[in-house]
């Protein structure tokens, strides 16, 4: 809730409310399998990662889960077995996402057997341009610099969800402030002109910025939203910490618990240099 975040900012300004980094000591939880994977129509190999959760403090070398048999199939009769390229990293060599198809990821591993299903949704708002606007430092803009604005037609028909991923000079922006998740509840069928996107650190002149629009199912959208809420959820109007949802289901008895997501998207990309 952006309005509530603004409250928090004001709190800090007026009443010197402050945040200090501290150490907390919590016993490590039970080992849980993580599945991370996303299939798109991009012309690059996609991977599915299997590993166990780790302690939340410090840097962690997650324990990979090797020697799993992972099969990806779609509802048009295509199927492919993934190839383990490095420990716990399984590559999809042939299949790409196609609009309307439903994909099934089946995992057989030492942790147990699992399955995930994901549908490829239409890309409801392809970007036709990307512009940048310079903003001075203020309450709303914590940092001075160029902020991206997107332009594009949202397709009529509600129930569309997208994520816009930003890349600066080729590297993926994945900080707390870089999340751009949109649903069309309030904007269905409108031309979205000049809508500012959020970035953790604004751009400077000469940055090459790529914006990728990813189509999402409602569930995948909410998965990303779960992550975003976790990352931005600390102040006075925080909600209780919630685990992210997952679309991975256990298919064998005694399979260890599982988290993570296997998603499918269509991706469209636009690139622009900040001038």
């Amino acid at each position, binding site marked *: 809730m952006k309005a509530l975040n603004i409250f928090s900012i004001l709190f800090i300004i007026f009443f010197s409310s402050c945040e200090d980094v501290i150490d907390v000591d919590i016993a490590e939880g039970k080992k849980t399998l993580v599945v991370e994977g996303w299939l798109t129509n991009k012309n690059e190999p996609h991977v599915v990662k299997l590993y166990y959760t*780790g302690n939340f403090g410090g840097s962690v070398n997650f324990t990979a889960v090797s020697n799993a048999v992972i099969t990806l199939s779609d509802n048009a009769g295509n199927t492919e077995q993934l190839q383990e390229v490095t420990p716990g990293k399984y590559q999809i060599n042939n299949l790409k996402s196609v609009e309307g198809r439903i994909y099934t990821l089946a995992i057989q591993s030492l942790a147990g057997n699992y399955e995930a299903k994901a549908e490829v949704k239409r890309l409801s708002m392809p970007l036709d341009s990307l512009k940048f606007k310079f903003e001075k430092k203020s309450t709303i803009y914590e940092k001075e610099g160029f902020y991206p604005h997107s332009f594009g037609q949202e397709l009529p028909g509600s129930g569309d969800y997208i994520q816009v991923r930003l890349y600066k000079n080729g590297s993926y922006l*994945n900080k707390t402030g870089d999340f751009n998740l949109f649903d069309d509840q309030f904007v269905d069928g*409108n031309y979205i002109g000049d809508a500012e996107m959020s970035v953790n650190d604004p751009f400077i002149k000469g940055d090459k910025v790529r914006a990728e629009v990813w189509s999402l199912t409602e569930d995948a959208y909410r998965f990303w939203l779960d992550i975003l809420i976790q990352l931005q959820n600390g102040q006075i109007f925080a909600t209780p910490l919630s685990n992210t949802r997952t679309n991975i289901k256990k298919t064998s008895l005694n399979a260890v618990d599982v988290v993570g997501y296997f998603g499918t998207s269509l991706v469209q990309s636009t690139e622009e240099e900040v001038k």
Partner: protein
Amino acid sequence: MKIISFLCTLAFVFGMAEAKAQKKVTLSGYLKDASNGEVLQGGAVAVKLPPLKALSNNYGFYSLTLSPGRYTISFSYMGYQTEEKVVSLTKDTLINMNLIPSSQIMQEVLVTSTKRGSENVRKPITVTALSISKIKELPPMLGEADVIKSFQLMPGVSTVGEGASGFNVRGGGVDQNLVLLDEAPLYFTSHLFNLFSVTNPDAMRDASLYKTDMPARLGGRLSSVLDTRMKDGNNKKWAATGGLGLIASRLTLEGPIQKDKSSIIISGRRSYTDLITKQSSDPQISDNSVYFYDLSTKLNFTLSDKNRLYLSSYFGKDYLNIAKRFGMQWGNGTGTIRWNHVFNPRLFSNTSFIYSDYRYELGVLNDPAVSFTWKAGIIDYTVKNSYNWYINSKSTLYFGVEAALHEFSPGKASPTTPESIFNTVEMQGERAADYNAYVDHELTISDKLSVEYGLRYSLFQSLAQGNTTVYDYSGEARAEKQPVNPKNFENWETIKTYHNLQPRLSFKYQTSENSSVKAAYSRTVQNLHLISNTVASSPLDIWTPSSYNVKPELADQVSAGYFHNFKDNLFEASAEVYYRKMQNSIDFINNAQTLLNSNLPGSMVFGDGRAYGAEFLVRKNEGRFNGWVSYTLSRAERKTELYKEYYPVRHDKTHALSLVGMYQLKPRISLSGTYSFASGTPTTMPDSKFEFEGIPVQYNSFDRRNNYRIPAFHRLDLAAMFKSRVKPGRKYTSDWVVSLYNATNRKNPFSIYLRQNEDNPSQLEAVRLSIFGTVIPSVTWNFKF
């Protein structure tokens, strides 16, 4: 309205019959402050032999029925000089008594000796009362005395943390307290990010908190009723009081319209936080504007000895403008018309017409592409008709009826410019009719035993506001459930009706002249629910009625206590224990969208709560050094469809200790201090993590809520008040109040949470949030003409 006139007639007939049947006479009238004509609530009118006593009600009216004879009658009220009068009673007699404040007689005398009350020991129901003058002596936060924060120093009353709006009573949520201002409900009780309570202490006469074991004449919420009453205004002479603080100022004007008969009071406050931010050279501050104001007005007219009329209103608003782009405002508005009628010396009635409105609005202002406004609110229209029937000196019957219509606007978002990307979205409004009737009997059975028992009946109807479709919801417990089985209702059609009986019983057994044992059982019902899943409730939270999918919340409580006064009531001590069970508590699925969600019931989960604890209080009410110590040991827990084992709620505090002291150093210098300690509240922390595309994701592998306690809370506040010398002939007095909030400069944690490390985005770091990270000094100048 038929039922009201029926009750009137019934009461009238009973009253008459009663008066004729016995050869007793009734002494009645009003107790008032001689200096300004304000009514005195809870003042005692007593005869020595036989030892009988009556207390004045909320409007200062008392009624004492005696056998004909000659009596010495004493009229007393704490802080006022006791008046004695010898009266020969042969028939019903009216005595309106004006009591003189003791401070006026004994100017600059340190120790006042006035009659002290012993109601805490004598009455079956314990009311937590703090006088407004006492509240004003406590160290103020930024120079503003605060009613709600003062009550948080009493046992059983707490808050989830500094900066959080509202208060928690005996483990209940902030929405389980009914805050009344001249009988009108206030739906959001804080100004300026919860710095101040919305009620202006300068305009207030009394504040009483009924904690859980409330009499049948009160209801509407599960945990408490905070009944605040506005001053009537000085009907003797014109007077002005006010104060200049660092961030806000106050001014109150009051005076007679017709001397001794009618008066008016107008009291306003405004913060100049917007002027302060404008002065800053840092655009990050100067671009923002934030302020609040409130205005309380009251008129009262004594139409005759039997009829009085009161008109009161309150209007408060907070404005917020961020970087000239984002705007927001919220506020309460209330209006009350009350008519007191004395049918006969033993039958007093009050009829109230009440309007209450809470609304907020926010939007993006100067950005055409994304402009919008979003409005939401709640409006209440209420009629109440209540009777106090003083049957005899040992028996008082309270009865009455109440009817209210609630209109809910859960939210409408619309674009303000044609270029805006947003469509108009409006949530279906809700409407409810709320009828209550009660009978409440206060009875002295013997010298030792007295009871107050009663029954409150509530009939609550969810009505359609416009053509409305309601749904059943089906699906997995953890996910948002989907609407199925639509049912259509036309405007005003009844969607669902709930009946609830609320029995209340309190009794007291006098174990000695100065001590008693009390026990109580109460059931309370709540039909208005705050939709909030955040730590602190925000002004954007909406209220929703019991409806097709939301059942009334119920609470049952048993409590017992021992009360002992020492040294002629100079010291009050009490120890109480309670156990409460709550049903149909509302919670939400994880990451529920609570605002602008047309399928909100699909995100709700329901559960049960329980709370238990022990509360201790030792209080010295007067003297050069006075104050109190309160300690609460408690636990508040909940379980729901999602979390099937009881877990502590977010505002659970195991230990809470408050020390409050006021010391008259010199005749014109007084010091005060408060120290609070509380155990840390629980919060939910992860026990492991994973990474998704390089982003750290927190994971709570056992999925336990509130599995971690944040560190304990300590705070010391200090204040000194310097009064001006009283010079003969000078018409005004003034004082300076200097205060230090959080004098030990402690960084008290409000919460602890994890965030992404800026330099190392795949890692998490733990953060402690302190709302007030420093000592906050303030100076206020108060004046009185």
